[in-house]
């Protein structure tokens, strides 16, 4: 589903990504793990088609990132892009106007799971509930690729748990590929099929999560600390 070959990205003289190659098949939940500044957001933005690589090739479902892929990719950036004057239902309707694949039925189910009221104004929502809403807007679509940039950071523990549950209930296991960029390895590791460690813009590990546990006798979080310390 996602193929990156030798991807590099330079900003001025700084290389944010260097020689990044990875393949993520359809239906996999993959963690892109690394510290802040490791290049995770840059990679997600390139996959989302919001940024272009300086070097290398990217294919999403066989296509280069562009108009075709953007219609099939749900990208949730770390920043808060919700409009404060809207209410929850407005945000759903607004998103639906941009994406044909928006599924109102699933949106309603996810709102219920996330304990969000359609009539709540966004300005009244706490950070945790805004994060929940961002996830609903992404998962309500029938996107082939879901890109989540730090979906749990700075969020209260109960909202984190709901978001993890929401991802597992809301994604389509045989059809969607999910990439989660985060430094909160412990919070997400049980959810991941694959883990990719990014350090100083390079891939330093790319393995199956359960295989790692079996081989190393350590949690992914412990391995992360070891490898990136």
């Amino acid at each position, binding site marked *: 589903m996602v193929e990156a070959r030798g991807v590099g990205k330079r900003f001025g003289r700084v290389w944010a990504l260097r020689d990044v190659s990875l393949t993520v098949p359809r239906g996999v939940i993959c963690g892109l793990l690394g510290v802040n500044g490791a290049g995770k957001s840059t990679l997600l933005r390139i996959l989302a088609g919001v940024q272009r690589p300086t070097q290398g090739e990217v294919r999403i479902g066989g296509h280069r990132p562009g108009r075709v892929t953007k219609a099939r990719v749900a990208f949730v950036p770390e920043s808060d892009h919700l409009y404060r004057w809207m209410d929850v239902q407005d945000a759903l309707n607004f998103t639906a106007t941009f994406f044909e694949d928006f599924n109102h039925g699933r949106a309603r189910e996810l709102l219920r799971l996330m304990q969000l009221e359609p009539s709540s104004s966004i300005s009244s929502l706490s950070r945790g509930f805004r994060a929940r809403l961002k996830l609903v807007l992404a998962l309500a679509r029938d996107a082939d690729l879901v890109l989540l940039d730090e979906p749990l950071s700075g969020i209260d523990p109960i909202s984190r*748990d709901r978001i993890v*549950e929401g991802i597992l209930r809301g994604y389509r*296991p045989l059809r969607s590929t999910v990439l989660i960029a985060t430094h909160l390895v412990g919070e997400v590791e*049980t959810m991941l099929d694959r883990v990719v460690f990014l350090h100083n813009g390079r891939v330093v590990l790319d393995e199956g*999560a359960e295989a790692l546990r079996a081989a190393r006798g*350590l949690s992914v*979080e412990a391995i992360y600390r070891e490898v990136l310390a």
Partner: protein
Amino acid sequence: MPLLDFQRDRPIYLQIADEIGRRIIRGALPPGAQLPSVRELAAELRVNPNTVQRAYQELEREGVVFTLRGQGTFVKEDPAMVAGLRARAAREAARRFWREARALGLSPAEAVALVVDMGHSEGEGDG
């Protein structure tokens, strides 16, 4: 199935399979009982569905459960299988205890005496 406390330093699918085995032994999952769907259990446990799938496959491989396409996964109605599960779990518990007892310098007789004593005092007390 309420939330499990996993050890994340060992394959999770094995821990899920073990826990299902324990519930079958205890009778919480009786013969013929349907296991939760892979999707549902994964969401409840907050793990990847493939992990639950592997756990179910492992149990099927061991002859503990069977899957009917389009219907779900069920506990086998086989008393010998449950007895076998219990025997294996008991052996594993004994192995763990014996390893600790030996590390403490106990002889097998001393270890057995301890267990017998514990069984007696439980019978007398609150148990």
